[in-house]
C-alpha cells in the first residue's frame, strides 16, 4: 500500500483514458439522482427527524448531510432566575463581547446584572458557558441569526431568556471542577474591615466576623479601621474573584489554603 511509485501510465487503450473517468462520474451521477447529498435549505432543515440517520452509510440509506448535534454551539440561552451575576462569563470571553447589564424589572436599589451578548463579535467558542458556575448560561443549537439592523445583533438578557424558554436542545456538556482549586485568602494587616467584599459577593459566601481590638500601647496609634474581617466559605465560593476586584486595599488574593 505504502510504496506509491506508479507514476507512469499503464499500457492500455487510449480510449479508456477518457472512458474510465467518465464511467465513474456517470455512476456517481446516477446514484445522486436517488440519494442526494444536499438538502434544500430553507424548506428542509438539518434538525428534521428524517435526516437523523442520513449518516448511516452501511445500511444503504442516503447519506451526505448530518444533523445538528445537541452540543452544537449556537446562540446562548440564559436562565435569569439562576444567574448569580458573578461576572465569570464576561471575564472569560476572549472577544470581550459580554457586558453585564441591569436586567429589566429588577429592584433599582439592588440591580441584578446579567450578561448581554453582542453576536457581532461573538466567536461561539463556548468559554462563557464553560465558566458559568451555576449552569445558567448554556449554548443552544439555534444557528439562524440574520437581522436587518446591526443593533439587533446585541442580545440583552431578556432576549437570551427567551431563547432559554424556547426549550431548544442545549449543550449537554458540563465540565467538572478541578479538585485542587485555590481559595481566596486574606492578608490580615492590610484589611480595614470595609465590608465591600461581603457586599458584592454574588453567592453571599463572605461573612464579616469581629476581630478583637488590640490594646494600644502607650505612644502607639492604632490604625483607623472597623474591627471586622472577611471569612470565606470555600464550599459556596465560585471563585469569581469579585471580592478581589472590589477590595480597596488589595488585601485579598488567590492562594492555597493550608
Amino acid at each position, binding site marked *: *500500500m*505504502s*510504496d*506509491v*511509485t*506508479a*507514476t507512469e*501510465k499503464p499500457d492500455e487503450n*487510449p480510449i*479508456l*483514458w*477518457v472512458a*474510465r*473517468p467518465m464511467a*465513474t*462520474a456517470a455512476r*456517481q451521477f446516477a446514484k445522486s439522482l436517488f440519494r442526494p*447529498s444536499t438538502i434544500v435549505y430553507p424548506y428542509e432543515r438539518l434538525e428534521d427527524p428524517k435526516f437523523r440517520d442520513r*449518516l448511516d*452509510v*452501511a445500511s444503504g440509506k442516503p*447519506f*451526505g*448531510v*448530518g444533523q*445538528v*448535534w445537541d*452540543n*452544537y454551539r449556537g446562540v446562548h440561552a440564559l436562565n435569569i432566575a439562576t444567574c448569580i451575576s458573578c461576572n*465569570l*462569563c464576561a*471575564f*472569560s470571553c*476572549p472577544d470581550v463581547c459580554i457586558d453585564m447589564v441591569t436586567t429589566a424589572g429588577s429592584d433599582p436599589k439592588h440591580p441584578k446584572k446579567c450578561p448581554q451578548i453582542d453576536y457581532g463579535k461573538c*466567536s*461561539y*467558542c*463556548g*468559554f462563557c458557558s*464553560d*465558566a*458559568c*458556575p451555576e449552569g445558567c448560561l448554556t*449554548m443552544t443549537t439555534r444557528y439562524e441569526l440574520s437581522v436587518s439592523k446591526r443593533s439587533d445583533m446585541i442580545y440583552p438578557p431578556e432576549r437570551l431568556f427567551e431563547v432559554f424558554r424556547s426549550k431548544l436542545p442545549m*449543550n449537554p*456538556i458540563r*465540565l467538572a*471542577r*478541578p*479538585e*485542587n*482549586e485555590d481559595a481566596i485568602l486574606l492578608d490580615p494587616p492590610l484589611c480595614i474591615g470595609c465590608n465591600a467584599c461581603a457586599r458584592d459577593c454574588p453567592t453571599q459566601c463572605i461573612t464579616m466576623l469581629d476581630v478583637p481590638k488590640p490594646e494600644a500601647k502607650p505612644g502607639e496609634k492604632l490604625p483607623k479601621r472597623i474591627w471586622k474581617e472577611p471569612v470565606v466559605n470555600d464550599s459556596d465560593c465560585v*471563585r469569581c*474573584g*469579585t471580592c*478581589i*476586584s472590589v477590595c480597596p486595599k*488589595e488585601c485579598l*488574593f*488567590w492562594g492555597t489554603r493550608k
Partner: protein
Amino acid sequence: MSEMWINMGPQHPMTHGLWNLRVRIEGEVILDVDPEMGYLHRGIEKISEDRHYNEVITLMDRTCYVAGLAWEHLYMLAAEEALHIRPPERAQYLRVLCEEFQRIASHLMWYAAFVQDIGLMSPFLYGMRDRDLILDLFQSYTGARMTYEYMRAGGVRNDLPPGFTDRARKVLDWLLPRFHEYDQLCLGSDIFHKRCDGLGKLSAEECIRHGVTGPMLRSAGRKRDLRRDRPYAVYDQLDFEVAVADGADVTGRYLVRMEEMRQSVRILYQVLDWLDRHPGPVMADQLPRWLGAPYAPVGREGYLLKRNYPKGVGFSAIEEPHGEALAYVVNEGGEHPYRVKFRSPVFANLAASRHYLVGYRVADIPPIMGSVDVCVGEVDR
C-alpha cells in the same frame, strides 16, 4: 518578444486566498517569480501574548482554517511543556483522533481545490461531499464544524458522545473506496497526466536547502515524517507507514496525499479501537486554578503580580497536513504566555516557489501552486 511582469493575485482563482504571485514572463515561459505574502496578517503571535493560555486556541482555529485541530494540537503540546502539565493518555488519543481526521479533511479540501485548478469539476464535488462527513463527525463531539475550540491545557474539553466510534467507523468504511474512485477519476484520466506529469520538480536536496517539508518533500522520495521521526502524543504506539513517491512533481504530490489519507484511515481504526477499550479521564487532575477549564482569571494588576507559577519553555513540532509546523511558547510565570512563535510549513513552501516554477509555462502555474496546498491564514498568521 519582450519580457513583462504579471500579477497573479491577490484575487485570482489560482491563489486560494489572499496572496500575490508576481511572474516575469517572456512569451509563455516563466523567467522569475516573486511571491508576495502578508495580505492576511493578523498578528496572531502578538495577540497570543495578551491572552490566557486556553484562550489562544481560539486563534489557532483561525490560523489555518482547514486544519484547525492540528494547530490546536501543536500549540497545546508546546504550552503544556511550558506549564509542566501532562495530559492523560485518553486525551492524547483523542487529540490524535482529531489530528488524523483533520488530515483527511484537509487533504480532501486540497483535492477538491486542486482538481478544480486543473479543470476537472466533478471531483471537486466529490471531495467536498466526503469532507462534509468528517465535519459532521467533528461537530458531533467538538460542537462546531470549522472553529472547534476543543483542546485545553491538560487535556480536551469533553469526551466522545455515545455511539461516536461506530459512526466514525462507518464514515471510514465509506471513505476508503472513495479514495479508489478519486484515483480512477484523476490517475485514470489522460487530461490529468498531461497537465501534471513532470511539473514543478523540486529534488529532495533542494527541498531541504529551502526548508520545504511535508508532502512536497516526501514526493521527492525522502521518508521524512515527524510522526515517525520525532513521535509526539501517542504516535509511537500506532502502526502506520510514511507515504513517499519518487516523482518530485505534481503527480507525486497527489500520490503522497492520497496515500497519506489511506494511512490516516489506518491510524484512525487503531485509535477508535483503543478509545473503545480504555475509558478514562480526558483532563489532567493537577492543574493550576486559572487553567481549570470552568474558571476565568480576574484581570487586575495586583492580582496578576502575586501569581507565582513555575516558569518554563515549551517546544513542539508536529506533522501538520501541509508540512512540519513548530511552536515555541515561553512561560514567564504569568497567566499569559510571554512569547509565542509559530513556524508555518506553507510559508517555507511558498517562499521556495522560485525554485520550482522557473522554466515552466504560465498555464502550468495553477497545477503547480495547487499541489503546494496553500493555506494563506497559516502563511501570514
